[in-house]
Structure formats: structure tokens, C-alpha cells
């Protein structure tokens, strides 16, 4: 009977060993307990003894790396059998360097199912992206989309479940494809043109302006107002700034006067809605405010019911909010009329564009000393242009003219305003 000699497992982590030397040769007779060979693991040297008697045939060669459980040799019942035995084999152990995973070996085991897959795991992975109508976009993609002003509605997501990923935004061109042929730049020109994308605010303004002009029959009528009495009134109010708690400005006084006129001429505080003309009961006047990058029009509600002091406070509040980008939706809606001060940038008279769906807009210019005729004499008077744009579909020229006249009356004799003030 042939007795096999195996490489024993000598420790938990032992996987292989090196054959150092044999103490007996092929064909030698060995007794039970006799030392046969010495192997070395990464931790120790070990002598393997014969477990029975017999004639030795060596299988593992000196210096060979052998695996635990591998056949090292055999003991035959006769010397001839031992010598005759020709069992050659090679040790196939790839010398692994820095990797420890046995998965990289050439052993072909059948692929195992993934234990965390949903049909095996007790806690199936939830689908990360569940649409339900929202645009699903990754955080970094959203950031880039915002920077590039890419409209997410127009992007097709390539991620799982249709989520928009960074690569989708990166692939989106920065500007929409131009419908007009590109402007040919004169390459000899001394100055270089610049190009920058349109901001959302600018886009909004341009869309509003085009809509207003295309949908209404706008025209503008002008007038001049002698602001001398208003100046005196204002100076007096400014002198009382401490008691009033606020500095009253020309804008406040003009707002108040406009509100009084609109009370008497409600047809101007109106708009066209489809087939109806809506005459508004409230007098909410929007104030055009220039902000960085464009224009906003916050609305002062019920100007007819506010005192000059209250108007001034409200004006200050809204301008501050405008400048700090903190206007709420209710601050910019519900206006029935708009006031625009060209004078703040040195303008005189202009043809302002209506703030749809309103039907009238008043622009006031700067107050400047100009020659005027009073009692046959040419004198210097502080004069101010007013520009009233109106929608001729609703307001006729005569009505618009009456508005200007009435406004002038109130402003040139501000005591009259007092008579109507509630």
C-alpha cells in the first residue's frame, strides 16, 4: 500500500511552504518516525516525519514552493516500486507580490451572485432617482448649469433614471445656437469687441419691453412744470426732517400728486383685459429703480391713502430691498401706474415704455433752472419735463393731456394738494 506524505497545515495563516531539504533519497527505506524532509513557512522551520515505514519516492523538489495539503512524497512497499514511480508535477504557485486577494489567481471559479443585489439582500437598494415630475439633477450639475445659464428644462439627462449629470451640462453649449448669421468682425479694427452672455435679468427686461411695445398703442405726451412752489414746500419739509423722522423728496411729492390726479381720473388707472376694460379701485404706483444689471419696479400700494411721511418710508424700504435683491413677489406685483424718474440720471424728457398691463406711465425729468416768461418778463425758473406714455387703445390724447394739466396745477400750486388730502 502506498503511503502518501502531505504538506501539513502548521498554523492558521499558513498557505504554503518552501522545501528546504530531504533527509532521505528516492528508494531509501525509512522507518516510522524517521525525519524525511524540512520545510520552511514564513514563520518557522518544520521537520516532517514518516508516519509509516516504506520506501521513499520524493515528489516535491528542494527549493520548491508547495501548498498546504500538497503531496510531498510517497512511501512504497518495495524499493523497485519506489524507484519506478514516476510522478512528475510542477508547482504552480504564482509569486504574488503586493496584492493579497486570492481573487486575482488564475483559478476559475464560477461567478457568484452579488449578495447585496435586491433579490438576495433583505434590504434591497432603493432606486435613487424617482422622478415624480421634478427635474432630477445632481448637485454639481446644478451648480454648473446655473453658472452657464443653462435652462435645465432643455437638458436631457443621461444618468440613471434620466437624471441630469455634470457631463450633460458640460456638453450643453453656453449660448443658444444663433438664428442670425454671425456678425462679421473687421479684423483690422483697432479695438477688440467683447462678447458676454445675456443675464437672466436682461433677458427678462428685453422680453417685457418687446411684449409691451408689440401689444399696445403707445404714445407719449410731454409737458413742463414749474417746480418753484414744490421746491419751497420741500425745503420746509426737509427742515422738519428731525421731527418727521424721514427726509421727504420730490419723488414723494410727485407720487402724492399723481395719486390725487388718478383719483379724479380713474380711467387712466385702468387696463384692458381681453375684451374688458378694468378700472382699478386701488392706486398702486410702481417706482422704476435702477439696480446693478438692470431695472426693477417695486410697487407702493394705496399711494392715495399714505401720508408723505409714510410714502417716504415705503419708498426708502423698497429701494433698499431692490438694491439688495430682497424684493418679495408681492413687492413687484399689483401696480396700476408707474413713475419713472429720468432726472436721477440727468434726463429731461423721454418716451418711456409702458409697464404692461398698465395703461399709463409718467416719467419726470430733472429740475433745472431755465428761462421762462412770467408776467411778460424772462426769468429763471426751476422747470421739470414730464413725459406721459399712454395706451391709445384706452386713453385718448385729450384725456392724457388733461392728466398733465391737472398734475401741473397741483404741483405749481401745492396748497391745492392740501385741499384734497385726506
Amino acid at each position, binding site marked *: 500500500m502506498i503511503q502518501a506524505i502531505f504538506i501539513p497545515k502548521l498554523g492558521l495563516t499558513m498557505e504554503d511552504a518552501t522545501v528546504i531539504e530531504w533527509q532521505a533519497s528516492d528508494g531509501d527505506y525509512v522507518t516510522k518516525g524517521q525525519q524525511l524532509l524540512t520545510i520552511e513557512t514564513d514563520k518557522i522551520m518544520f521537520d516532517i516525519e514518516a508516519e509509516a515505514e516504506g520506501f521513499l519516492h520524493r515528489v516535491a523538489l528542494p527549493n520548491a514552493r508547495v501548498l498546504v495539503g500538497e503531496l510531498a512524497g510517497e512511501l512504497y512497499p518495495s524499493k523497485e516500486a519506489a524507484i519506478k514511480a514516476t510522478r512528475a508535477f510542477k508547482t504552480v504557485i504564482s509569486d504574488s507580490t503586493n496584492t493579497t486577494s486570492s481573487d486575482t489567481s488564475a483559478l476559475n471559479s464560477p461567478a457568484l451572485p*452579488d449578495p447585496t443585489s435586491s433579490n438576495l439582500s433583505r434590504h434591497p437598494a432603493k432606486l435613487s432617482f424617482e422622478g415624480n415630475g421634478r427635474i432630477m439633477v*445632481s448637485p*454639481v450639475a446644478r451648480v454648473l448649469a446655473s453658472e452657464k445659464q443653462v435652462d435645465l428644462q432643455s437638458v436631457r439627462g443621461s444618468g440613471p433614471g434620466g437624471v441630469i449629470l455634470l457631463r450633460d451640462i458640460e456638453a450643453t453649449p453656453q449660448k443658444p445656437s444663433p438664428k442670425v448669421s454671425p456678425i462679421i468682425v473687421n479684423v483690422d479694427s483697432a479695438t477688440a469687441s467683447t462678447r458676454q452672455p445675456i443675464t437672466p435679468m436682461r433677458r427678462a427686461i428685453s422680453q417685457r419691453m418687446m411684449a409691451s411695445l408689440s401689444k399696445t398703442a403707445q404714445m407719449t405726451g410731454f409737458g413742463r412744470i414749474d417746480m418753484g412752489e414744490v421746491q419751497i414746500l420741500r425745503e420746509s419739509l426737509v427742515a422738519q426732517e428731525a421731527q418727521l423722522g424721514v427726509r421727504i423728496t420730490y419723488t414723494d411729492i410727485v407720487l402724492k400728486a399723481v395719486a390725487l390726479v388718478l383719483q379724479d381720473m380713474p380711467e387712466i388707472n385702468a387696463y384692458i383685459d381681453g375684451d374688458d376694460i378694468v378700472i382699478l379701485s386701488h392706486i398702486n404706483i410702481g417706482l422704476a429703480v435702477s439696480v446693478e444689471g438692470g431695472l426693477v419696479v417695486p410697487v407702493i400700494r394705496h399711494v392715495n391713502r399714505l401720508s408723505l411721511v409714510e410714502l417716504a418710508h415705503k419708498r426708502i424700504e423698497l429701494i433698499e430691498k431692490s438694491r439688495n435683491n430682497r424684493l418679495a413677489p408681492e413687492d413687484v406685483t399689483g401696480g396700476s401706474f408707474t413713475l419713472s424718474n429720468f432726472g436721477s440720471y440727468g434726463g429731461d424728457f423721454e418716451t418711456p415704455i409702458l409697464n404692461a398691463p398698465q395703461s399709463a406711465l409718467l416719467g419726470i425729468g430733472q429740475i433745472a433752472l431755465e428761462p421762462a416768461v412770467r408776467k411778460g418778463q424772462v426769468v429763471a425758473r426751476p422747470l421739470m419735463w414730464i413725459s406721459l406714455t399712454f395706451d391709445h387703445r384706452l386713453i385718448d390724447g385729450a384725456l392724457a393731456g388733461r392728466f398733465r394739466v391737472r398734475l401741473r396745477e397741483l404741483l405749481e400750486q401745492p396748497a391745492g394738494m392740501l385741499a384734497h388730502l385726506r
Partner: protein
Amino acid sequence: MTTKTYCWALIDAIREEMERDPNVFLVGEDVGAAGGAFGGSRGLLKAFGNLRVRDTPISEEVIVGLGVGAAMTGKRPIVEVMFMDFFGICLDQIANQAAKMHYLYNGSFKMPMVIRTMVAAEMGIGPHHSQSLEAWVGHVPGLKVVMPSTPRDAKGLMKSAIRDNNPVIFIEHLGLHRMKDEIPDGEELLIPIGKADVKRIGSDLTVVATGLMVGKALVAAEQLARQGIEIEVIDPRTISPLDIDTILTSVRKTHRALVVSSAHKPFGFGSEVSAELMEHAFFHLDAPVGRLTPPFTPQPFGKGFEKFLHPDADRIAAKVQEMLR
């Protein structure tokens, strides 16, 4: 440069520190005469004698307690808890005593102690000898927890741990013991605690891997590279305090992260990394942070089960590909 195995690199580290500082000593089960249950302290008893290298009874609580008291009174003990699975026996001395001594007594005591332990996941030993419990100790303020994945890191971190004036849980992996690496000669190898290591630079996805998983991630990286995917592999090396900055820098570049760990997913290391990335790199993420771990079961005995349950290089690569879809 000398080639050393992970196991010998650790022995060298301990030996060097014991030579350098007579206050350093080592106690634990089988650390002396047997040279360590897994050979992890061979030669030390002979070199330093049986006061400084001493075999203890099987008494994890007092083994750690001995370290606590010695550390409080001027010594720098290294105590061994043979398998991390045994932490349940001595958690009071670790979490209530060692971790809190310096704090509770307002700095009166330092606790320069190393608790050396072993994770034997995937070694086929069974449910009580295979758990990776860094989350237990990472959750305790006052402890530091390190988990080296290479011989070089092991040596450098062990030396730093011994020199640190705080209790450091030093987690070895049994499966890494035979890994070989080049260790520099001459200069002292000190790797700072609390500093991660970028083991491989890439740009498509960040893989954060610990312990045994680092090597697997690197193998997966090679597989993926052949398909044109370059992953960045980060080995935190220290579990707590976690070097989140290195991971954040990487994710800001790659926009995707996957944590691969031998520990369980619920309440595990991956959860911590994921939460940190959520808080500090949310706007850089192009996909949710992934976690690849064994499923939430105890570890049954045997290699067959282990191979099924634990992530390997193929699964890591597959997960990366899934996350890049």
C-alpha cells in the same frame, strides 16, 4: 530599503520603540514565549525580558485595565486584545476608563496606551473571529483608531501610536500579515496619525478603502484602467480622527465617491464618510456616495461563505462602473 512583511514591520516598530523608551512594554495573551498567537511579537521576549514582554491570563478586561493603570502612572503600555471580536469583554476599560481619563481629570493624567488588535475577516474562522468593529471605538471621544493596510503604514503608524499620548486602537488585519513591502533603512519611519494616503491618483471616482479592502481596490483600479476608467484610491489609515480634507479634495475633483469596507453598512465607517461628504461636498457630487460592504449578517464559518459575502476586486470594479453610468 529592506523587504519586510506586515507582521515583521510591526515587530520592528515595537522593538525600535521599546529600545528607544524603557517605559514601553507589551502585555497580552501569548505575546511572550509563543511570540504572539500569529507571530506578531517574535523575538521581543528574548530582547526585553519578561517584565517588559509578559504573557497574561485570558482576561481581556484586566489586560486593558493593566494598560490603563500603567499609562496613568508614567508607563507606555502596548496591550493586545487578540481578536477585535473580543472587544465586548473589555469595552468598559477602553471606552469608559481609557478614553475618558485625560478629559475627566482635566488633563491630570495622560493615557499613552496602544491597544493592539486584529480583524480576521475573510480568514475563514467564523462569526466570533471576523468582525471589523472600528465603528464601536470610532464613536468614542478620547480614543484614536488606526487601521494600516501596508507594511510601511503599519510600521509608521505603530511607532506614532506608541509615541502618542492618547489611547490608540491599532487595528491590524490578519490577512495582511504576509504582505511584503519596501521599508526604508536608516531614517525613522513615522507616519502621522490623522493623515490619509492617496494610494492611487485618478480622476473619475474616489474610492475610500480601509484595511484589507485597499489592496482589492487597487486591483480593481487596474481592471478599470484597462477600460479607460481611472479611479483615485484613498486609504484613510486613521479611522478617527478622520482626515476628511484629503477625501474632500479628491471628491471635489472626481465628483463621485465609493467607500469600501469589511465592516457592515448600517452605522459603519462608510456612513461616516458619506455624511461628511454630504455636508461638505454636496455641491460637488454628481452621484450619491456609495458604500460597498458585506451584507448585514454575522459571518458564517468557511471560505465559501466568505467569498460570497465579502466584496472583492471584481465587485468593486462593477460597483464603480455602475456609479459612473
